[in-house]
């Protein structure tokens, strides 16, 4: 599909990346968002924590806010919980303006980054807290607490105090406590931050299953890109209080809006250059760092003379062995560094211009006839459609 084939022109634009599940209300012009941020701003003294955000999240969506530390993710989310008030703009939930609605009257629940479990109450007491506030009958409270503790597999520890729980157990209790009220929206502030890698990956899938099963909208904050890519239906990339791009994980990875997003999400090499002219359906870009004229696919908003960056991911580059058919773009270089990761090997190849390009190759076979070694001269290349042309 990516190779230049004659059939390409007759087809509609190729789909990007993997298709997750049959769920894309954001593509439906008639769909009404559940959560809306409209021109929201918030300053703390001199810092603009949230600087003009417009955002829509749909019902049953698993939405991730992703961005570097201090970019305003927590602040944006806390506005929905009612713990921060926007200086400007407004936040609506199911069409209702939330301004002036105190936290205890909002149909959202939050799972705090620090879990914030009440240390003087047992696990069951913590989970029952929210239901008691609603004045439910005791028998119903007990039944619902038991049920939700079953869901998170914490029933056996219902009588423990939080101090006597491990990090993973606390996280489960915090989740149960936030879920038991069956909120419209569950807010999760780096819910897995305190877990080790293994437990974290397990929990990621559990959370996703739970979200689909319960049909609750999840709004999650994280600064771990893998976590966001794994879990989210859509991701909003934030930087310095602004939203830079919103899209599905695949869209953001394969079609980043600018250099910042491309570099933030995964590895990328960017060849700076100037558009030379038309080349079939694509363009040619003269790039000094690449040391050649690169052929790239269709790109919006470019014309001859535009300064662009040609971004290419390591897994879309390959080392061209002698005798193999060469792709459209080839460059010669020297192997500078090799990182063997088991499933992948990362080669850092130094071009004549001094630019170091990262190339990754899947280790599909256990043994290779002629392995690439340090300081070998190699030829690397990529197909025009694999690259992204960045104008910003």
């Amino acid at each position, binding site marked *: 599909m990516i190779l230049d084939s004659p059939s390409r022109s007759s087809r509609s634009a190729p789909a990007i990346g993997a298709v997750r599940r049959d769920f894309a209300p954001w593509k439906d012009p008639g769909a009404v968002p559940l959560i809306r941020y409209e021109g929201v701003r918030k300053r703390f003294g001199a810092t603009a924590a949230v600087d003009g955000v417009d955002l829509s999240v749909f019902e049953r969506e698993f939405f991730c806010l992703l961005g570097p530390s201090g970019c305003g993710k927590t602040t944006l989310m806390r506005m929905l*919980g*009612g*713990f921060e008030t926007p200086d400007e703009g407004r936040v609506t939930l199911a069409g209702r303006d939330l301004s002036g609605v*105190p*936290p*205890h009257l909002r149909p*959202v*629940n*939050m799972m*705090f980054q*620090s879990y*914030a*479990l*009440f*240390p*003087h109450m*047992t696990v069951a007491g913590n989970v029952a*807290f*929210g239901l008691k*506030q*609603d004045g439910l009958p005791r028998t119903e409270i007990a039944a619902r607490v038991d049920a939700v503790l079953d869901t998170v597999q914490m029933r056996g520890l219902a*009588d*423990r*105090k939080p*101090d*006597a729980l491990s990090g993973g157990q606390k996280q489960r209790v915090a989740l149960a*406590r*936030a879920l038991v*009220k069956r909120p419209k929206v569950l807010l999760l502030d780096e819910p897995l931050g305190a877990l080790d890698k293994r437990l974290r990956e397990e929990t990621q899938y559990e959370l996703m299953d739970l979200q689909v099963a319960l049909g609750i909208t999840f709004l999650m904050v994280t600064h771990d890109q893998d976590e966001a890519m794994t879990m989210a239906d859509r991701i909003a990339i934030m930087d310095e209080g602004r939203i830079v791009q919103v899209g599905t994980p695949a869209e953001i990875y394969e079609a980043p809006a600018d250099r910042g997003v491309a570099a933030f999400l995964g590895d990328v090499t960017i060849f700076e250059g100037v558009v030379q002219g038309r080349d079939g359906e694509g363009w040619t870009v003269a790039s000094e760092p690449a040391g050649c004229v690169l052929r790239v696919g269709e790109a919006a908003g470019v014309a001859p003379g535009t300064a662009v960056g040609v971004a290419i991911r390591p897994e879309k580059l390959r080392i061209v062995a002698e005798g193999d058919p060469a792709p459209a773009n080839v460059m010669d270089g020297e192997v500078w560094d090799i990182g063997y990761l088991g499933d992948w090997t990362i080669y850092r190849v130094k071009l004549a211009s001094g630019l170091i390009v990262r190339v990754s190759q899947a280790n599909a076979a256990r043994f290779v006839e002629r392995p690439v070694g340090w300081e070998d001269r190699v030829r690397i290349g990529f197909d025009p459609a694999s690259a992204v042309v960045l104008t910003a």
Partner: protein
Amino acid sequence: MIGRDAGRGRFLLIGLPWLWLGVFFLLPFLVVLRMALSDSAQARPPYRPVFDLSDGLSATLDKIAALDLENFRLLWEEPLYLDAFLTSFRLAAATTVLLILIGYPLAHAMARAPARLRPILVALVILPFWTSFLIRVYAWIGILKPEGLLNMMLRQTGLISEPLEILNTEAAILIGLVYAYLPFMVLPLYAALERLDATLIEAATDLGAPRWKAFWLVTVPLSLPGVLAGSFLVFIPALGEFVIPDLLGGSDTLMMGRSLWVEFFNNRDWPLASAVAVVLLVIVMGPIMAHHAFETRRAEAERRGGRS
């Protein structure tokens, strides 16, 4: 070699506090107890010791069997002393309650103040300690006396026509006690409240509790150890307080500290004064033991992780 050194180190570590307690608490207590069991006499010192170091064991046992506990009986039978006990107890309890009511909001506001202001606020609370305690109590006389500051102000604003009689009443003692012990209540409360994680309150409101309920269900239970610590720090010394009742109270309000003073210096009845001291100590030990038991149980419950 190393083992013996470590052993000695451990002995020093554990032994020193015991030695300290023995020399500065147990020994004086035994001296006072012996005095309390003796009879008063026209002598120097003014009592006839019951026990003597030169007594043998059997002589000591005989003497113990023959003790009449006369001084303690007198304390129990003479309404004057019982009254003094009750007055002390009542005033100390009232002081503690008032201080919780005043100190809790104060400590809460301090703990919620911007972080850079907090050290200044703490400094303000302990600032009065830089002036002599006696001078501060005398200042209260100046404020409370009939032609004092308070009455002057009240009269000028036209709230009263006749001066209020505050000095030399129980009210004056209470004011003095509350004033003097405020830091002892505020500081432990502040320590407990400042340590309290603000996100716990947010979590409570997030789960549907209005602010006042979040305060009642989360802040209050979690600051209870601070309330308890502050109460002991206030109640125990207030029970035996002497200076404040002596200077601010009238001659008709007799408190334990005062009667102890009177017996010791005015009546030169050292044994009776010692008996008062022993009883005071025993009374104070009660709540301390209760507190200790409470803390131990709480720690144990936490360790076991069960419902408490």
